[in-house]
């Protein structure tokens, strides 16, 4: 199954989800996206940049260890509320480079979207 098919499936499966993007946190680059309508590259870049700002280890190790625990591990998922939308970011646990970004219209969809994105990301990372 192609990455695009996985993204299309995720977007269709999550109510209120208008965009799903698969990106690389290290490169801060969206590699594939599924959207009901064309999206400007700037919006995709912004999503990936925000994901990297939250889920990449951009801060110093000591600060990360103090704040995020003894292991210094950073979170693997984040929910960002804005006045207009809800953004859900899920990072792969292993490589820490793959990320899925879901743009939803309501926090009502967040619970299912997080779980679904986690499963789809694993499939993509496993090459399924």
């Amino acid at each position, binding site marked *: 199954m192609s990455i695009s*098919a996985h993204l*299309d*499936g*995720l977007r*269709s*499966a*999550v109510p209120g989800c208008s965009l799903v993007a698969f990106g690389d946190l290290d490169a801060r680059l969206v590699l594939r996206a599924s959207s009901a309508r064309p999206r400007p590259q700037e919006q995709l870049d*912004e999503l990936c*940049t*925000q994901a990297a*700002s*939250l889920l990449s280890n*951009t*801060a*110093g190790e000591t*600060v990360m260890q*103090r*704040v*995020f*625990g003894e*292991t210094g*591990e950073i*979170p693997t*998922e*984040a*929910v*960002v*509320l*804005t*006045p*207009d939308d809800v953004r859900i970011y899920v990072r792969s646990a292993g490589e820490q480079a793959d990320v899925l970004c879901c743009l939803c219209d309501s*926090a*009502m969809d*967040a*619970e*299912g979207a*997080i*779980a*679904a994105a*986690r*499963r*789809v990301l694993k499939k993509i990372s496993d090459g399924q």
Partner: protein
Amino acid sequence: MGQAEMADVLETSGGLSRLGDLVHRFVLAGSEAAHDGAGSCGGDPVSAALRVILREIDETVLPRYLTVYDSDRPLARLVVSNRRLFALECEGNAAIEAPSDPSAAARVFVQGLRNLAATASALRIRTSGRASEIGHSGVSCSVGHLAAAAGLSENGGDADRLDAFVDQVKPFCHGWARCGTQDNRTGGDAELADYLIGLSETGYGLAKSARVAPARPECAILPLPEDVSLVVAAEGRRRLIAVIPTETGPDVLSVWAGIYRSDS
């Protein structure tokens, strides 16, 4: 993708993530709590409308005309640039002449804006074009100056909302730091608050490529070990970074939604 595969995508084997569970409880808490939060920071209707106008000014960087409507009826046109108010032109009247003294100008502008806020029963603001002339007198007022003249806030319209958010969520926090201004404020565990300031100074949660502060307010919540969550809320240049017990996450999200999501 077929129905079976869609169901497979949505299946939650292994249980929901902690953040998912948190959001789930937030959703269960529902909009009722959100509305309660909105009510607690709104103040009187005229002040609330005035805050809306000030917020629009604060989010306008390029030279623009902002038209204030009561429903569909235009009431006035504001000339705004670089987050500052340069002129106020009320419908059917000559443009308000602002004195050259900034404090006096702020008072005159605020009086005009208050009249608008009191007149409009359904206030709306729309950008109505690029401002070709930025005031004749050269006098302009920042949102902070206008807010102070209106008695709304010492720091400005956006600070008013973020500070309202801070005030309401700090009882939940293990530690918190409000950064991005010259007067950083902290609370809770002092050592943790220091680390949070350090985290803020690394630019955590901010896009490094961003040349200007994000125009839209945002609130990120991230699960951490030991059943705590990190909250990163930003509006303009001001930020709140806090560590909260994960179980209080729904309350924090409800407060944020009550203050900010009522915009949309």
